[in-house]
């Protein structure tokens, strides 16, 4: 039962990544692209945790935590660059 649930969850998170990729490619505005990239990072964090659950490896949680940190910092840096033309003033 749990195998089927894990595979289904991984499939739908992967589908979510693909939908975000479509929005990154299509998205008419820059803000749409940033938002889609941020959502992509969220989905990839979920995929990493699912992989850690399936393989029983604990280091994947640290990887997911690092992904969350880097995703947040990169989103804020990109927005700040667009707003101010500079990241660290």
């Amino acid at each position, binding site marked *: 039962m*749990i195998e089927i649930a894990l595979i289904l969850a991984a499939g*739908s998170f992967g589908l979510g990544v693909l939908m975000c990729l479509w929005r990154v490619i299509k998205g008419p505005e*820059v*803000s749409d692209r940033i938002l889609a990239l*941020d959502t992509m990072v969220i*989905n990839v964090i979920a995929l990493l945790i699912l992989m850690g659950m399936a393989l029983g490896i604990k280091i994947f949680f640290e990887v997911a*935590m690092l992904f969350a940190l880097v995703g947040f910092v990169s989103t804020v840096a990109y927005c700040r660059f667009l707003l101010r033309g500079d990241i660290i003033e």
Partner: protein
Amino acid sequence: MPENLPLWAEITMTILLIGGAFFSLVGAWGLVRLPDAMTRLHAPTKATTLGIGGVLIASMVLVAARDGLFSVHELLITIFLVLTSPVVALFIAKVHLHLRQDRAALPRPPSGGDWAGYGAHGPTRGERAAPPADTRQ
């Protein structure tokens, strides 16, 4: 794949995983489907809170059932995401307002004056803040 789990853990984990997967799909589909940027900002919040939350709680249940431990890594990730997602949403909305919206066409705030987002920060579309005057002799 995890094996030899008690039945209650399997049922709880399955429900949480399917629920999280459903909400992540809802968020991604909303990102594809909704018509403009400000409404699209609303969709992925489901994936951030409920989708990730379901998967992380399922992982906590797994660790509790398999090793008999209370795992805190997942709570750390949840707390970090819940803390940072409003900041990200604010920044993206600000980028959209400053770069793509006509400032004069926005509705006025009820208290008069201007929206706080236009206060001291950031050049609006087309206008750059004047460089500081050169005071060197």
